[in-house]
Structure formats: structure tokens, C-alpha cells
């Protein structure tokens, strides 16, 4: 039941004409413009938008986090009282008791020097006047309520001893400590792995049911919102462009921007070579002027002159749905990008470009001289040098054909980035070998790798640090040309412009510096830099993970175009199975340094699955409860059995712990490393089916 269809119910939180402006020196930036929405008691509302849309500023304004440079006007009625007008001390009291907040990064949100239980107890002592021992006891109970089994242990632990998911649970417990009626969640699952994300969402939805707490959920991900919220507000360029009931918005979006966001999300299904994601061209304006017309008009495929004639009002349809578009009712589906049909190339295993054989990498955590430890044992002092070895990649074999894309999926810390760096010989293997074009790289000394370096390049995840901030785009792109003597000095400028054109950036970007570019543009420059050496193989290490959905789609499309135009091979690394499936011919699923399933994209997405693949798919599709991973995500060398045994819902018994799983070959390209017969989990996941059907609707 939506809050919008029940206008009589008194809302818990009502935001009226909220406008937020930041003043920086002589500049003024509007982060939110006339935002109005209501959240009923026990309800849940999601604010969705891309980075810079102003969604977090709205949360910040309610929580009074914005600082002195922000100018907030409008009213915020919470339980019938305007909190914007309260004196600071009273407002702090109110926020502490009645409104809880959880933020994106659980890794920095807890004080590393205080025990977790103490940090949950603190607000109770502050705001409820409970004695510390009493509060600590309540904190332990709260942790148990969050689904942490050994709550006493967790309460006594320091933050670094808990996993990311556990920390986020502890933070939710702290936010709920004083029994608030509203919980504000600002991207609470963005920093977590998909399996953990699914658990946290499940927990939040249970808490909402059991405690009747209302949720204001801020996210960039429309897919996540369905599992938790009744209503969705979509923000674009500081404006609310659509507000309505969640299924209505997700299934029949009114505003073109909502349509674009939904269409840009890759479906969780194998894609053919000529399929491309629907992308939203251009980028969000930083200083939008709504008085001159629709803010989305420059990027809108349905745009016509009338859109820019005057400001767009938020129109309310009879069912309470609000859309800021005058012709929302007549719009068709978001248009798809068309590419000429591409022949699906046939890859022969024999002529592999990259060939990894029993590749292993073990990191020694042993540091330098300073890692010596002195301790006293049996009355005598001893010197100790910890000899810990952590296997990051363990006995991995695969090959990549010329022109083929191998996707590599796995959660953070599973060794997928290490594997990418091993293939490029940025790290040297501890065992096994890497062959490139028939040459065994593992035997070559570092100095002899130069011809290989020209042919194999890398694109990174972190758009903030992948370009040297002191080099202009032109300088960064000229360097590989000079290093490998690919263009005479006089022709370099022309070649740089050609490279920029390949990644669809104007030639004028040559003189720009990284800080003058948006995230997507920086990633294009990084791709151009990798292309500058005219490589045959590129390792793409999470190239779209840090980007917004619409930008992500354009980069994925660009990589697909380059693959087809230049015949490139990729190792495409990502934690997102949907993105990997979109671009890859084959997909390898990695868990704790081992590949547990490998096959064509269609084979991996269809049953039978490896139990871990199944969990990944279930998390993405929100299907079944997922077992909690052990606190330490790194494997130990002593482990001899299946690495997934501790989390596996289909565990057979001691055999899983003791014997390495056999590789079961199901077809010429499909193999699963598991003791289990591939039959028991052969059913298609119902949630996955639903997702794929939904994806087809937008196709």
C-alpha cells in the first residue's frame, strides 16, 4: 500500500519545497530544488539518482550534516514538527533519539579504537540515560537481533576483527539503538559484495516488518530498491523527476530518465556479440537551469522543441504517480543502440592467445626488518619473524583465444585482480606458467618483456587514480607512442587525436587535465591510453564498477565496439555477473583463488550451477537465504578440500573439506569444480527467471 494513495494518513516525515544551495567562494551550486515528498509511518521510500543528483544532500539536510556552506530552505516536518526550525541542541536530541542513520562505507564508519559493543551502547547512554553496563547488555541483544550468531564475541571485538557485512550490521544496530521511528540509509550496501548486499537488504526488510521502523533509502541502484521500498523518488540534476509506487515506477516508468536508467542496467543474461546496452548519451549538467525548460532535455531521445519552452512542472496522475514530463503518457520504450550484425566468431582451443597453466600466486605477509616481533616465552625472550603465506591465486588454468572475451567474476578479495596482474606479469607467479602468443612469459626476465608489454595492456577500476594528475590527456597518450616508437614526433598529435576519436572524445580534450574530466571521460582516456600501444589483449579490471549506471552502459558498449572493430581479446574482471555476461564470450567464476566454474556465458547462467555461482545468481535475483561467510575472507594454505565448503549449502560431508573437488566437464566449454553431481541444483532460479523476463520487457 503506497503512501501516495493514502493522503489521509498522517506522514511520519514530510519534506516540503526543500531547496539546498552550496556557496563556494563566489560560486553557487544548487543540490536540491523544491523537493517535496512524504513518508508514512512504517513506510519506506527510496530516493534514486546518479552521483551528483543531490540525493545525499537531501539526507544530509534532514540529518543536519551539510555544514555552514549549505543554505537550506523549505520545511521538514518530522512527526508533525518542523525540524529545520528547531534550536541546534534540541535538534541533536531529536536526531539522536528518533532518527537513525547508516552510511555507505562500513569500513570507516566505526571508530577503530573502540570495541563494537561500546559504540552501539554509546547513543543509548547519551540519549536514553541508560547506565553503561545496561547499555552494553542491550548492545549485545541488538547485535543478536541483527542476525549475528556469536553476538557477545562481536560486541567485544574491535572493528577490524569483523567482516564488512558484520560491520554494517553493527552500524545498523547502533542506528537502531535508541528505538528511532525513522532510519535513513545512504547507499548502505554499495561497498559490499552482492551476496552480503542481499543479506543486509533481507535484514532491513525484516527489521522494518518487526519493529515498524520507517526507511528512507538512498541508492543509485534501481534494482535494489524493489526488494525494500514501497515508493521511489527519482532525482536528476537536483530535481525530483518522478515519484510513485515502486512497481509502477520499475515496470511502467513515466519519466524518460527513469526509462533510461532501467534500460541501461544490463540484464542478467548472456548477450550476443551485436547486442549493446541502452545508453543515456551525454552527462548530467552540473549547473542546471530548470527555468529554461526540462533539465533532461539535452540527453532525452524523446526531446522536442516544446520541452525547452518553459519549466517542467511535476504533474500528478489520478493514482498519485508524479512525473516531471509533459508527455510522459505517450512515450514508448527507451530506444536501443543498433549495431550491424556481427558474426559470432568460433574460437578454437588450440590457438590460444593467452594460456595460463596451473597458475598460482602466494603473498608473504612477512614484511621487512620491522616485522620482527619480540616476545617472552617460558621466561626467555625470543625473536620471531612471522612466516605467514597467503595464497591469492591457486592452481588456475584457462586460455583466451584471439578476439575472445573471458569474463572473471568473484567477490572482493577472491584473487581476480591478482590473476589479471599475473597475466600481464605485473606480478610474478609463484607457480605455473603464463604463455602469450606461444611464448612462455614466466621464463622471461623482466627486461625482456617489452615486446609483450606493447601487446598486452590494462584498464583499471579507480577512475580517480588511473591517470597521472600532472599529465595532460595529450601527454598521457603520447607517452606510449614515444616509448614504443609508434609514431614520429611530428605525427604524434594526429595519432593522439585518432585515439581520442576511437573512444569518442573530442580532439580538444588533448589539452585537458584529469581533474577537468568526469569519471566516464577519464575511463575513456584510460582506455585510449591502453589502445595507444596497439595491443591485442587488454585486462579490464572492474572498468565500470566505479561509474554510474548510464555511464557504465556507454563504457561497456565502447568496449564491445572496440572488441569487434579491432579484434581485441579481453580478460574482463567484475564483481557484477550481469555486466560480465553482457560482454563476455566465456565466464569464469572465482572463489578464494580458485576457478569453481567456467563456461560460455549462457552455460554459466543456466543450470546446472556450481553452488557458489548459484548463490551469486540468487543474490542478484534476491531468491533464497544466503549462508554467512566466515569472518576471514582469505584462505589459509593448510586447507586441502573445496575452498567453498564452509559456505556451501549443499555440502556433502567431510569429503568437501578434505579432498579437492574434481573438475566435472559438462560440455566442450563448460566445467564445474565440485564433488556434487550436477543434478540437485538443476532447477532454474525463480527470481532469475523473473529478472530475465523483466529485462526482455525493456529490450
Amino acid at each position, binding site marked *: 500500500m503506497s503512501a501516495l494513495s493514502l493522503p489521509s494518513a498522517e506522514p511520519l516525515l514530510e519534506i516540503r519545497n526543500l531547496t539546498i544551495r552550496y556557496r563556494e567562494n563566489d560560486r553557487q551550486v544548487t543540490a536540491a530544488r523544491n523537493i517535496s515528498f512524504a513518508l508514512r509511518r512504517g513506510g519506506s521510500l527510496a530516493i534514486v539518482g546518479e552521483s551528483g543528483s543531490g540525493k545525499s544532500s537531501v539526507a544530509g539536510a534532514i540529518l543536519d550534516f551539510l555544514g555552514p556552506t549549505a543554505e537550506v530552505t523549505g520545511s521538514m516536518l518530522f512527526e508533525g514538527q518542523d525540524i529545520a526550525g528547531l534550536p541546534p541542541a534540541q535538534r541533536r536530541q531529536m536526531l539522536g533519539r528518533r532518527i537513525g542513520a547508516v552510511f555507505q562505507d562500513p569500513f570507516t564508519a566505526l571508530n577503530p579504537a573502540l570495541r563494537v559493543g561500546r559504540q552501539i551502547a554509546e547513543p543509548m547512554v547519551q540519549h536514553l540515560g541508560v547506565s553503561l553496563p545496561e547499555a552494553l547488555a542491550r548492545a549485545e541483544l541488538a547485535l543478536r537481533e541483527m542476525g549475528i550468531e556469536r553476538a557477545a564475541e562481536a560486541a567485544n571485538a574491535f572493528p577490524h576483527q569483523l567482516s564488512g557485512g558484520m560491520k554494517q550490521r553493527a552500524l545498523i544496530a547502533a542506528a537502531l539503538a535508541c528505538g528511532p521511528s525513522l532510519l535513513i540509509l545512504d547507499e548502505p550496501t554499495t561497498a559490499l559484495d552482492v551476496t552480503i548486499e542481499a543479506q543486509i537488504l533481507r535484514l532491513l526488510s525484516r527489521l522494518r516488518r518487526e519493529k515498524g521502523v520507517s526507511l528512507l533509502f538512498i541508492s543509485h541502484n534501481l534494482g535494489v530498491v524493489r526488494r525494500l521500498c514501497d515508493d521511489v523518488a527519482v532525482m536528476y540534476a537536483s530535481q525530483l523527476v518522478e515519484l510513485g509506487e515502486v512497481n509502477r515506477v520499475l515496470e511502467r516508468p513515466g519519466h524518460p530518465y527513469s526509462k533510461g536508467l532501467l534500460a541501461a542496467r544490463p540484464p542478467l543474461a548472456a548477450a550476443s556479440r551485436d547486442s549493446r546496452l541502452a545508453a543515456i548519451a551525454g552527462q548530467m549538467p552540473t549547473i542546471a537551469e530548470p527555468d529554461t525548460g526540462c533539465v533532461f532535455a539535452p540527453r532525452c531521445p524523446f526531446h522536442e522543441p516544446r520541452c525547452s519552452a518553459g519549466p517542467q512542472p511535476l504533474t500528478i496522475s489520478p493514482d498519485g504517480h508524479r512525473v516531471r514530463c509533459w508527455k510522459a503518457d505517450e512515450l514508448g520504450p527507451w530506444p536501443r543502440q543498433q549495431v550491424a550484425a556481427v558474426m559470432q566468431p568460433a574460437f578454437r582451443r588450440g590457438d590460444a592467445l593467452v594460456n595460463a597453466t596451473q597458475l598460482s600466486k602466494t603473498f608473504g605477509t612477512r614484511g621487512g626488518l620491522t616485522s620482527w616481533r619480540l616476545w617472552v616465552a617460558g621466561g626467555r625472550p625470543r625473536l620471531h619473524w612471522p612466516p605467514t603465506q597467503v595464497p591469492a591465486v591457486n592452481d588456475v588454468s584457462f586460455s583466451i583465444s584471439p578476439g575472445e572475451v573471458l569474463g572473471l567474476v568473484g567477490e572482493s578479495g577472491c584473487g581476480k585482480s591478482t590473476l589479471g596482474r599475473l597475466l600481464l606479469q605485473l606480478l610474478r607467479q609463484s607457480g605455473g606458467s603464463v604463455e602469450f602468443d606461444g611464448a612462455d612469459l614466466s621464463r622471461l626476465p623482466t627486461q625482456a618483456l617489452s615486446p609483450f*608489454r606493447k601487446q598486452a595492456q590494462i584498464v583499471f577500476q579507480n577512475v580517480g587514480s*588511473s591517470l597521472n*594528475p600532472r599529465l595532460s590527456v595529450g601527454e598521457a597518450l603520447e607517452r606510449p607512442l614515444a616509448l614504443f616508437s609508434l609514431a614520429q614526433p611530428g605525427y604524434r598529435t594526429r595519432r593522439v587525436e585518432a585515439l581520442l576519436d576511437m573512444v569518442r572524445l573530442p580532439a580538444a580534450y588533448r589539452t585537458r587535465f584529469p581533474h577537468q574530466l568526469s569519471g566516464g571521460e577519464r575511463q575513456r582516456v584510460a582506455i585510449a591510453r591502453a589502445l595507444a600501444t596497439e595491443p591485442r589483449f587488454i585486462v579490464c579490471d572492474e572498468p565500470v564498477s566505479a561509474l554510474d549506471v548510464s555511464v557504465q552502459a556507454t563504457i561497456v558498449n565502447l568496449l564491445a565496439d572496440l572488441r569487434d572493430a579491432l579484434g581485441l581479446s579481453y580478460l574482463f574482471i567484475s564483481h557484477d555477473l550481469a555486466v560480465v555476461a553482457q560482454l563476455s564470450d566465456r565466464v569464469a567464476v572465482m572463489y578464494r583463488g580458485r576457478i569453481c566454474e567456467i563456461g560460455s556465458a549462457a552455460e554459466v547462467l543456466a543450470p546446472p550451477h556450481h553452488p557458489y555461482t548459484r548463490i551469486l545468481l540468487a543474490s542478484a535475483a534476491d531468491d533464497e537465504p544466503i549462508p554467512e561467510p566466515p569472518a576471514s575472507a582469505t584462505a589459509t594454505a593448510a586447507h586441502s578440500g573445496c575452498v567453498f565448503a564452509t559456505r556451501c549449502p549443499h555440502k556433502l560431508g567431510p569429503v568437501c573439506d578434505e579432498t579437492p573437488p574434481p573438475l566435472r566437464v559438462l560440455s566442450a566449454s563448460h566445467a564445474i569444480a565440485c564433488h556434487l553431481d550436477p543434478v540437485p541444483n538443476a532447477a532454474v532460479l525463480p527470481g532469475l527467471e523473473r529478472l530475465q523476463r523483466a529485462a526482455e520487457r525493456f529490450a
Partner: protein
Amino acid sequence: MAVRLAELTAAQFIRRRRRLPASLVVGGTIVAALIVTAALAQWIAPYPYDQMHVRDRFQPPNLHYLAGTDEYGRDVFSRLLIGSQLSLVLGATATLISMAVGVPLGLIAGYRRGVTDEAIMRVLDVMLAFPPIMLVLLILAVTPPSLLKTAIAIGVLAVAPIARVTRSVTLDLMSGEFIEAARARGERLHYMLLRELLPNVWPVLMVEASLRVVFAVLLGAVLSFLGFGVQPPAADWGLMISNGRAFVDTAPWISLAPGIAMSITVIAISLVGDGLREVLDPKVGGR
């Protein structure tokens, strides 16, 4: 980055001037004025620095002697001007020496890590463990004093802190993916250090260098005060303060004037350091 600033056309400079921080404008103006007066000291000083006016001993500041006279009737103002040459040359030389040695050491330690890092940093730790004055005195006391030797002694002292700062910034940069991209191209050591790392360490180093100039000026004065630096009758601020000590109650200007001059110098250089950091940050200044 000084080169980059010089490359700007006049029009660009005027456009950017609006964004220059006040600390840089004020500090830079004072430092520039100090350098100009020091360079022209011989010509603008009203009297030779060692000329004694026997009848005008202990004159308080007046129109003839702008900062008064000392116990020999020498003009304090003229001595200040000449003394500023020594202070500035000493500060600059010492800092150049320590940068020339410390920056490469820090870059290599941070880039190579492992055994190289341990070897360099442990040796520097030993240097840090000496009390600074002791180290300088050790060098100066056993041989006849000279300006260059004082500069080297002070410069050697600052090698360890400069190398440490360089190393820590380098370590931070090493996690940047552009470093890994350069390694994926197979770049050689000198390119990595000079083109990828140094330009990014530079802003921090400029701030550190300005701090080091300040320390060098102060330490030089301390050494002169103790009698190990510049020898009388040369005009040096530390030496002047030392000489005026005996007359602080009757003729305070003899010590006070060089003290004030030193304070102004030190504050101005610190301001420049602060301002430079803001300007050199690529996100603020647009380079």
C-alpha cells in the same frame, strides 16, 4: 613547478592572479623585497657595515642611524642589510643541498621498497638519532668555520626529514593506478621517478622546503650566536644578537633589530610555503 609558472603568458598570469592565495601574495612580496635588498645591500646601505663611528656609540634609532648603532658605533641598519645576504644564502644553499640528496633517496626508497627501502631508511634513522646541534658542532668544531661548511652541515641535517617526507608521499602515490599503468608499459626507473612520481611529490616538497629554509636560517643564527658560524667582524644576524646580548638593558635595539628581521623573514617564507601548496594543487590551481 616553478618552470610552469614561468611559462605562463602575462595575460594568463593576470587571470590566475585573482585566484592566488593571500598568503602567497603577502609572503612572496616580502621574500622578494628581502632578496632585492640583500642583493643590493652594498649600494643601499647608508654606511659600510664595519665603519665605526666612535662618537655615536649606542645611539638609539634616529634619522641618521635608522636602527641605531652598536657598541662600536657601527650602523645597525647597514649591518642588518649585509647580514640578510648571509642568512638568505645560507638558508637557500643548505636547503638545496638537503633536497638534492634527500629527494632522490626518498623516491628510490618509496619506489623500490624492500631491501633498498630498509637500507636507506635505517641509515637515515641513525642520522635522525643524533641531536642536531651536536652533529653540526661536530662538523664545524674540528675544522675552521666557513659559510659553505655551515651550509653543508645544516643541509646534511635536513636530508633525513626530506627523504622521509618524499618517501611517504611516494608510497602513497604507488597505490595509484597510473603507476601500475606505467609499469604495464614497461617504463624504466628514471621515467617512473622523474615523470610519474616527482611532479606529484613536488607540491608537498615545496612546502617542506620552505620549512627547511626557515630551520636553516634559524640554525645558522644559532651557530653564529654560539660562535661556530660566521666570525666577527662579519655582519650576521645571529652574531649581532649574540653581541648585543650584553647591552640588552641599555641598548635593546642592537639585538632586537636582527631578531625582528629574522622573524619577518621566517614568517614570510612560511607564508610562501603555505601559499605554494594551494597553488600547486592541480585541483585548485588548474596547474
